[in-house]
């Protein structure tokens, strides 16, 4: 198990290096010095304590969406709906935050609970559709994204709008924000907020559920082989619904940290890109909670450093976006890297290449069960 996990991390590192090399080629092609480009990219994300805080703040919602996608992956489900679940989580948190005049700890707890419940229920529906009618969760979660998009579009201007703007909710009061004085001061006025603490807690919690509990074992068993799990007496449908619900709850919490921490209000007409980045984070993190944490921080670094690289070099923003996207793309190909390495190894050992068993991204990992 340990060597297996170690191998996955090495593969992810190789993928990152490949991504950086591909990005460097792009920088060269656009007539820029890649070393200088990367220097500014990393300085932009790490140069001082404030920027470090911003990197972590950018990573926070990604940790949650990454966990969300990874959790569903483990049960063999592909959750493309993290963006919509984030929106609903954020909407629930905002609704509570703008409505109740409670004291800060109570209010924050209520907001987070609302986000958790909202995101969870939002994802439970595709889970139920999958369990009951075998509706493919990729289709239903994507559709749920748009339902969430237009729900927010209707709800925010109708019930939570500020005095002038139709397109944004009222600003959350300071008591309802995850931004905290001491944490902001510690990071020199950065956008870091309590969400990062929460994210780390949930990384530990998901790792515990997946690896240390019977429930987690059942979820993974369903992911490895649904039919075998069913024959072995595991309630497959219940596990499918629960897995989606938990995945949705995680994304919903991500929404709360984004809209009530990183931002301080909700905008209509925007599907948060973090929902989709979560898929790449999960892939790069080898679908493991700790891997997700690392991958999300790496993505946060890229997103935070990009602007500084732009400002310091002559790389135009569009090329910079392409470079970031290329790095992400290559980073998410760790499975491909694994196959190539496997093939090379087999060839060296004189064996015939055997068709690899992992044809789909969501396919289970061999030898993962305890």
């Amino acid at each position, binding site marked *: 198990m340990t060597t297996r996990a170690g191998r996955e991390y090495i593969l992810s590192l190789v993928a990152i290096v490949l991504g950086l090399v591909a990005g460097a080629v792009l920088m060269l092609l656009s007539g820029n010095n890649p070393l200088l480009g990367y220097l500014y990219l990393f300085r932009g994300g790490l140069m001082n304590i404030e920027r470090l805080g911003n990197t972590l703040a950018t990573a926070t919602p990604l940790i949650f969406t990454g966990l969300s996608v990874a959790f569903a992956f483990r049960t063999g489900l592909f959750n493309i709906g993290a963006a919509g679940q984030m929106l609903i989580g954020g909407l629930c948190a905002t609704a509570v935050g703008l409505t109740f005049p409670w004291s800060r700890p109570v209010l924050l707890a209520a907001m987070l609970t609302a986000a958790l419940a909202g995101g969870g229920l939002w994802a439970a529906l595709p889970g139920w559709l999958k369990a009951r009618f075998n509706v493919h969760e990729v289709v239903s979660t994507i559709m749920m994204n748009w339902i969430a998009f237009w729900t927010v579009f209707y709800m925010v201007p109708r019930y939570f709008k500020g005095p002038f703007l139709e397109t944004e909710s009222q600003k959350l009061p300071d008591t309802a924000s995850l931004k905290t004085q001491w944490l902001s001061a510690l990071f020199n006025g950065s956008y870091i907020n309590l969400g990062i603490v929460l994210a780390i807690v949930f990384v530990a919690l998901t790792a515990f559920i997946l690896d240390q509990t019977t429930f987690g074992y059942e979820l993974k068993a369903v992911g490895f082989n649904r039919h075998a799990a069913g024959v072995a007496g595991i309630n497959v449908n219940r596990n499918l619904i629960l897995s989606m619900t938990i995945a949705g709850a995680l994304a919903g919490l991500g929404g709360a940290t984004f809209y009530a921490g990183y931002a301080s209000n909700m905008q209509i007409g925007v599907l948060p890109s973090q929902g989709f980045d979560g898929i790449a984070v999960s892939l790069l993190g080898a679908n493991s909670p700790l891997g997700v944490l690392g991958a999300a921080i790496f993505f946060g670094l890229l997103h935070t450093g990009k602007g500084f690289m732009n*400002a310091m070099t002559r790389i135009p923003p569009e090329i910079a976006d392409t470079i970031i996207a290329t790095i992400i793309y290559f980073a998410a190909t760790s499975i491909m890297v694994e196959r190539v390495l496997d093939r090379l190894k087999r060839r060296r050992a004189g064996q015939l290449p055997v068709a690899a068993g992992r044809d789909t991204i969501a396919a289970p990992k061999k030898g993962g069960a305890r």
Partner: protein
Amino acid sequence: MLKRGISFVLVLVLAAAMFSGCGKQADKPEPGKPALKVGMVTDFGTIDDKSFNQGTWEGVLRAGKEFGLETRYLKPVGTTEADYMKEIGNLSDAGFKLIVCPGFKFETAIFQAQDKYKDTKFVLIDGYPHKGDWAPVVKENTVSIFFAEHESGFLAGLAAALQLKEGEFGFIGGMEIPPVQKFNWGFQQGVKYANTNYGTNVSMKAENVIYQGTFDNVAAGQQLAAQMYDRGVRAIFTAAGGVGVGSINEAKARAKAGKEAWIVGVDVDQYGEGVYEGNKSVILTSAMKYIDVAAYDMIKAEKEGKFPGGQILTFSAVNDGIGIPKTNPNLSDDVYKKVMDAFAKLKNGSLKVSDTQGDLLR
């Protein structure tokens, strides 16, 4: 006056192009004082949006060329205050001490930035800094710029009504935000003005005044336009960014098939966007905001040490900040002349256009 303003600007650009080589040498920074570098942050959408971002950037580029300044724009990852603050910080840290931010979305970000980056100057277009409560706080290092969209919409509405004389008009807006609403209300007043003073017979129905809700849904813009044309609308005023591009596409398809379909453009002269055959275009005229001029003027002012910090400026007919294009191949000379009469009246104050809804549609 408008014509003169534009030709003067053209001459300046030409001169700048001719002397750009020498200009750079002449503009060597004084020792001890770093050269001015001008940055811009986009609010959302791309730099080539044929509208807000592009207009601002063109103004920045023109000033950059003319005064030999380094210019750069950044595109934030998202559209939250934190995203904007990050890019503003990046530019300021990299030595860009004049930053142009087009769009009301920057209001709360600039409110913080003007205190956090005291050595940096900010030009905020279409908004003013506030902390989230809409009480303006414009510090000495910030200038806030508004446009009289209602006057621009008025002139375009007047022109369209005079040219087509009768029938139904429609309006497609992006998000229901003040600048877009003011375009709409001004347009309706322009149509009414034509009906009252020039005997035209143009009407607008509530069902043909629609805010799509976004600035980027091209497909929806096409659909909405198709529905309106099917309901017998002859000309649609689009103040909707990418949504308007969809409407223009629909109009082009219809015009190609020999059917009548007119569009009134927005922000910049969109005539080129609407060309469907040879040099025939579906763009009747455009309700323009001279965003580029505003950006250029502020950079020039800073360069000359006359930055109007702490002020809220309005660009209207009075200072040639709005208008319709100088050349409108789809308008007759007589119509253009009448529109210019109205423009002159707006300028001297004898004609007023309301920037509120009153008894107008939506």
